[in-house]
Structure formats: structure tokens, C-alpha cells
């Protein structure tokens, strides 16, 4: 059942082409017991765009991301991905469909080296079975080598060559965030979900991270969904913004539209004092 007609998308001001709808979230409602975390929210994500989700703490942004990555299952509403309604799936099946993410509080594998962490991101590209891996001959070794080459490209891209063999536990916070982005990118995702990629960073690290997000979008055409609190960053980076408050959607549009939306100003950006 193909649910959405392909539409043409649009061009952005800086000349990037945004494609048709990649994912549509339709009337999503998510409850935890009696608490309604997300109330009847619908929005869409287009191919190639950077889509931001903003809102005050507890607005349900991370829950929204968790629904997209399949960690939560909404009680009502549908996720329509690539034109098809997505059935209930386990998170690892969803990641196989080209959705990768980073986490708000870093979720790297602390006991492994940076290289191993990023290689774990390429799981879906490695098919050697247990016996082939056990003898480490032919397919397993060849695959390891090919994927290592891909991973090295990402390491190069994110400028983390010097720490490739360092155990993740020894890295400072900013680098960990970057390694996490590398791990998500290693999967070559169609949609990349970033949960507060810039939280707790200094200005310089934020600038680096912005550059990486834009470069990723530019070079690989990766559709990016972004949760971020830094308004300057959100308004500069994103093509369209969804604004949430108390589990409801109160605004949706280009940064300029959102910025001038009365309800958004009242709920989130604050009313200017005379």
C-alpha cells in the first residue's frame, strides 16, 4: 500500500535540492501509563533536509526520536517510511532500514576502542557467518578489510585519526560526541537522528559539530533530524523546524516562520519584556 504520492520537493535558499517525503509521522500519540508524552502529532521529513525538533525540557522531543528509531511504540498513529506504513519492529530491524542515531547522553561502548565502536556501526554491511569468522579466512577477513576502508574514510572526515585505537573511556566529552556521530555515519544511514549533538560543548566544539552536520548533509545527502537547545544553531542549520510543547506540536515551518509564530514565542522563546 503506497501511501504518499511522490512530490517534487523544493530548493533551499542556498541551492540544495530537497526531495519528496521520506518519512511521515501521522497522528502519533504516546502514553506512559497515565502520562501523555506525545499528543496527536503529525509531521513529515523530506529527503535531504535538516529537520529540527525543538521545545522546552519534557516537551517529548526525545520520545519522538525514540519512536522514529523504534525504541518506543506509539499507542496511536502510524510511521510511514519510504511510502509504506511501518509495522511494529524491533530497534535493530529498524536500524537495518537505514535509520541511525546518536544519543543525548553518550551511548558509546566504553570498553572498546574508537575503531571498534565505529566498526560496530557497519554491522549491517558485514555478512560473514560464525564459522567464517571463526577461521578468519576468506570472507570474514575480506569483509573486515573492506569495511575498515570505509570506516577510515569516516575517521578522516571527522578528523579523529589520532584517537582511532584509544579506548573510548579515555576520551574527553567533545571527542566522544564526535565518535558517536562517526558510529552513526558508519552505517551509511538514509536518515540520521541526532539527539542534542551539541549539548555541553564549548563554542569551538559546537562550530566543529555544526560544520560536520552540514558537511554530512552536503556530501552524503543524509537526511538529518536534529534535537537541539541552542537556538542560534537550530535556526542556522535547519531547513524546517517542528516546535513541541507539553507533547503537542505548536509550530512547524522554516526557521523564519517559526521564529515569528506567536504561540512558539509565548511557549518557548519567551515573551519580550517591554
Amino acid at each position, binding site marked *: 500500500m503506497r501511501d504518499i504520492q511522490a512530490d517534487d520537493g523544493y530548493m533551499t535558499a542556498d541551492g540544495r535540492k530537497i526531495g519528496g517525503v521520506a518519512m511521515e509521522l501521522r497522528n502519533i500519540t504516546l502514553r506512559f501509563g497515565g502520562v501523555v508524552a506525545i499528543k496527536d502529532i503529525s509531521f513529515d521529513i523530506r529527503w535531504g533536509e535538516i529537520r529540527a525538533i525543538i521545545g522546552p525540557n519534557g516537551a517529548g522531543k526525545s520520545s519522538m526520536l525514540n519512536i522514529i*528509531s*523504534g*525504541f518506543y511504540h506509539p499507542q496511536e498513529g502510524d510511521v510511514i517510511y519510504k511510502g509504506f506504513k511501518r509495522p511494529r519492529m*524491533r*530497534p*535493530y530491524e529498524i*536500524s*537495518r532500514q537505514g535509520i*541511525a*542515531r546518536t*544519543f543525548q547522553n553518550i*551511548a*558509546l*561502548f*566504553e*570498553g*572498546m576502542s574508537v575503531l*571498534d565502536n565505529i*566498526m*560496530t*556501526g557497519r*554491522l*549491517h554491511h*558485514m555478512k*560473514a557467518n*560464525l564459522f567464517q*569468522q*571463526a*577461521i*578468519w579466512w576468506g570472507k*570474514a*577477513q575480506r*569483509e*573486515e*578489510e573492506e569495511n*575498515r*576502508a570505509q570506516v*577510515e574514510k569516516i575517521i578522516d572526515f571527522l578528523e579523529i585519526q589520532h584517537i582511532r585505537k584509544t579506548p573510548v573511556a579515555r576520551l574527553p566529552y567533545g571527542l566522544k560526541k564526535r565518535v558517536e556521530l562517526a*558510529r552513526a555515519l558508519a*552505517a551509511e544511514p538514509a536518515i540520521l537522528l541526532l539527539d542534542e549533538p551539541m549539548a555541553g560543548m564549548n563554542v569551538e566544539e559546537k562550530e566543529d559539530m555544526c560544520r560536520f552536520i552540514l558537511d554530512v548533509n552536503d556530501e552524503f545527502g543524509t537526511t538529518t533530524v536534529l534535537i537541539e537547545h541552542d537556538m542560534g544553531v537550530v535556526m542556522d542549520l535547519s531547513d524546517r523546524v517542528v516546535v513541541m510543547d507539553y507533547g503537542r506540536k505548536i509550530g512547524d515551518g522554516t526557521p523564519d516562520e517559526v521564529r515569528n509564530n506567536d504561540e512558539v514565542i509565548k511557549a518557548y522563546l519567551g515573551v519580550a519584556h517591554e
Partner: protein
Amino acid sequence: MLYREAGDFKTNYVADSQTFPIKFDRYGYYFLLGFAFLVMPLIINDYWANSIVVPFLIYTIAALGLNILIGYCGQLSLGTGAFMAVGAYASYKLMTAFPELNIVFVVVFAGIVTAAVGVLFGLPSLRIKGFYLAVATLAAQFFLIWLFTRQPWFYNYSPTGMISAPQRELFGVAVTGPRASAVAMYMFCLCFLVSLAWLARNLTRGTLGRQWMAIRDMDIAAEIIGVNPLMAKLTAFAVSSFFVGIAGALLFTVYLGAAEAGEAFGIDKSFLVLFMVIIGGLGSIFGAFAGAAFLIIGPVLLKLLLVNTLGWPTDLAAHLEIMIIGALILGFLILEPHGIAALWRTIKEKLRLWPFPY
């Protein structure tokens, strides 16, 4: 200064990800391997084989297996003794049912049977973790031992309730049974250990190993990255039990010759192997060797020192030995909570820069 990596350039990814990236390590490894295969058979005698070397080889296999489960996949298990018993009883049933079957296949099939049993008792790990899983595996320990001591089919209705290994030959040399020589036992176990250690290294360096470690370090993130937790945990249980089963089969057929489940594979065996893994170092192949060496060779050396060198009475030495080993374990864990392997790693890192640590 021999120990350095400067000037040792790697020009491809295969060379970069080899097991011993430093030349000195690599030659050390070849030397050890050569020593174990060429020199040891010439100098080994019955006493050394029976008191140290053969048990060391066998327990190292068990520790390798448990290390895959606990150290790499983070699933705590206290059922090692019972899984060794599965290996032992499986090899006994195979040897008596198929007398013509080559002993190598007997041991390997015993490992495969244990792997299947391990997967069965690994199923609770899909819902519970940590100490709760340890308690669930304790159930395996008690249930399996009960099964092997109370169900006569498993010990072929022998009146004593014991199982004993008949003589089996490999290339015309007896490796099991009372007439097996020390050299034959040693070489047989050594071949198994070397090939299993190689398998363990291969499995832990690749995709499967990374899936296991991902589950260990952060299972929720691992699942979102794309690790199937069911597959990762059950393969860890299967591979781990395979190793432990082979260790149990070797312990029974080659080393003990005769065994009774409750006596030979009780919960103290589970703890012994667990301590080896913890003292040696979780998540390290070398750690399995180091831990087994510490707990097998340590007491014997201590006894030799106290009784033969210092001339103390045997009973006093036996008590002191337990206390000293206990104190050493505590000391080691306070000094380096991550085990001998971590200590070794730190030393190597220092050595890389020595004598110019800047």
C-alpha cells in the same frame, strides 16, 4: 629497547589489525609456540604433566570459554562446572556408544552437545541480566549435576555411579585411559588449546566479537545500532559452552580418567573457573591463560617452596597455601581490579616508551 613499534610500519589494514602488532611480541609468541610444541614434549615427566601442565591446559580452555561469556558478552554465569559435566558425560556416552569413533571427534561432538545445552540455559539471559542471571545459571548447575548423578542412563547403569574413560588411541598412541603417556596427554590437550585459543581470538576480533562487547557495554544502544540481542547472547552462550564442554571432555577423558558428576564438576569448579577469568582479566584472551596459570601453577609452586625448599610439614603447608593464595588474589585485585591482563597491558604501554617516556 627491543620492545618498540617505531619503524615498524603497517601498510595495509590486515597488518594493522594483526594479533601481535609489535615485532617483539610476535617473535615471543612464535618462540613460546615452538617451545610448547618442540621442547616441552622432550622434558615433560609424569609429575609435571599431572600436577601442573595438563590441568593448566584444560582449565585454560574452560577459562577461555567463560571469558567469552562473561568478559566479552557480559553475561554472568555460575554454571561452568555443570557445563563441563555435560562435556564429560557427552564424551562418555559417545565413547561407549560408538567405540570406533576417533577421540578427536568425540571431544568436538561433546563440545557441540554442550553448546546446545548452553543455549538452552542461556535463554533466560534474554530477559534477565547481572546477578539475577547468575542465579538462573545456578539452577543449571544444580539441575544438571542432579541429572547426571540420579539418572542411571547417563552413567550406563554402572553400580558405582562413576563414569570411566576407556583407552582411545590417536595415530597409534594411547591418549586416554590408564596407559596414556604424559607426552601424549600433553600434546593432545595442547593441540586443542592452541586451536581453540586461535578460534577465540578470531571470533572476538570480528563482527561477532564486537556485537558481544556492544551488548556487554550498553545493551540498549547496541540494539539501536543494529545488534540483534537474541543472536548475540545465544551465540555467546553457544561458543562459550562449546569451549567449556571441550574442557570438561578433556578433563574427564584425558586427565581424570574416571569421574562422578557431583565430585568432579561441583559448584567449586564453577567458582574456580570464574576466579580464573576475574583474576586473569575479563575480556582478554591472554587473561584466560594468566588466570589459569595463577590458580593452577600458583598452589603447586607454593607447595614446592614450602615443603621441599623450606622443609615445613605437609599439613601446615597445605593450610598456609590456601591462605597465601587467598591473600594473593585479594592483593592482585586491589592492585589491579581488571586482572593480570590489565597489569600486563600497562607494563607493555610503559615499555613501548621506555626509556624515554615523553
